[in-house]
């Protein structure tokens, strides 16, 4: 692939911390990716609109607010409604291990919990793109 991977980094939910999202955004940039950073308090609808307009390969959502079980599946669901089936959806942030199987079942491809080295996320993205 001789084009940069495009990643939407979004921060759904109402909490006001985007440090984690910024750390991952910088790491992905340093890995040669084009990161579309959308900032705090994104609704699932906004994330999906941005995903379509920016034609990204990956949607990476960072979430701390505890609403992951509703917000993350909602994004996957809305993408399906829009017939977007070639975008890799991943999540990160404070997500209890017990919730991970549920989220994966709902179509979030992978969850990266705090302490995961950014290189793991980068390798995962490179290996799991849905589009050439």
């Amino acid at each position: 692939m001789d084009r940069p991977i495009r990643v939407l980094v979004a921060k759904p939910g109402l909490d006001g911390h985007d440090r984690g999202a910024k750390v991952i955004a910088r790491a992905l940039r340093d890995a040669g990716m084009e990161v579309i950073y959308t900032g705090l308090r994104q609704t699932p609808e906004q994330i999906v609109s941005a995903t379509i307009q920016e034609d990204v390969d990956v949607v990476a959502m960072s979430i701390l607010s505890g609403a992951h079980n509703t917000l993350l599946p909602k994004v996957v669901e809305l993408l399906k409604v829009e017939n977007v089936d070639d975008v890799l959806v991943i999540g990160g942030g404070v997500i209890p291990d017990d919730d991970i199987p549920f989220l994966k079942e709902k179509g979030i491809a992978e969850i990266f919990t705090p302490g995961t080295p950014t290189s793991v996320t980068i390798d995962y993205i490179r290996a799991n793109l849905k589009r050439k």
Partner: protein
Amino acid sequence: MDLAERLLQGDKRAVARLISMAENHDPEAVEILKSLFSKTGKAHVIGITGPPGAGKSTLTDKLAKAIRKEGKTVGIIAVDPTSPFTGGSILGDRVRMNDLSTDPGVFIRSMGTRGHLGGLSKATQAAVKILDIYGVDYIFIETVGVGQSEVDIAKNADTTLMVMVPGLGDDIQAIKAGIMEIGDVFAVNKADRDGAKRTAREIDMMLDFNHSDWRPPVQMVIAVDNEGIDELLGHLKDHKKHMEDTGKLQQRRTLNSRLEIIDLVQENLMRMILDKSKKEEMINQLAVDVAVRKTDPYTASESILKEI
């Protein structure tokens, strides 16, 4: 349905995919643009430039909302620099435009410069055409003013909006150095801060040296508070109207088209020279030879040209 048809029917995914194809030098994008080029030229293309953090994105957000109130539609292309070291970038302009994300009458696209240092790439020009065909009434191109890009933006826009902030100091020097001729409309943003009037006056004074029949207006605005936005939009529209009434829009578009043709010839020539992997090898070998003084760069370039 193919991409061209989907674009004509207003499918946002088709818009998005075509822009990606243009960014990735997909020849199919060029073919589609050839077939639909006659449908371009309708939108008012506005370049927004100015120093980092001047409030260009916030201003674009507010201008777009004012335009939407009039029932018109908007396309926004926000260009940020690509790191020359990693090829990556963080494109953060959407942060200021989140409310527009879900507005069906707005399309926002972030682009990295991808190697066009400070300048607008061919892909940006293609994106403007794609949004024009898609049918928006206004297209904004936001770029950070870092020298060359202001000049570049003027080559692609009907109207160039220069965004300044109070207390620029050194930047005023940069304006004196020639950027002044590029602004068709000036905004002094962050007018809630000290010194806005003074900055506006300084810009206005420098415009005294401008001899064209359009005197660029200098509008004070507070983008975060939505102040001065309607006035600013009025100036942008007035400029387009002035350009139309005086025949200058056609002149400017002719000049811009001329520059675009020359750019494309240059780029295609470069591709002809460099794309062939054999020549790439040849260039690499010649580079080594020149570095160790086995040959000189003049002879090296001539031997590449002989290969074409």
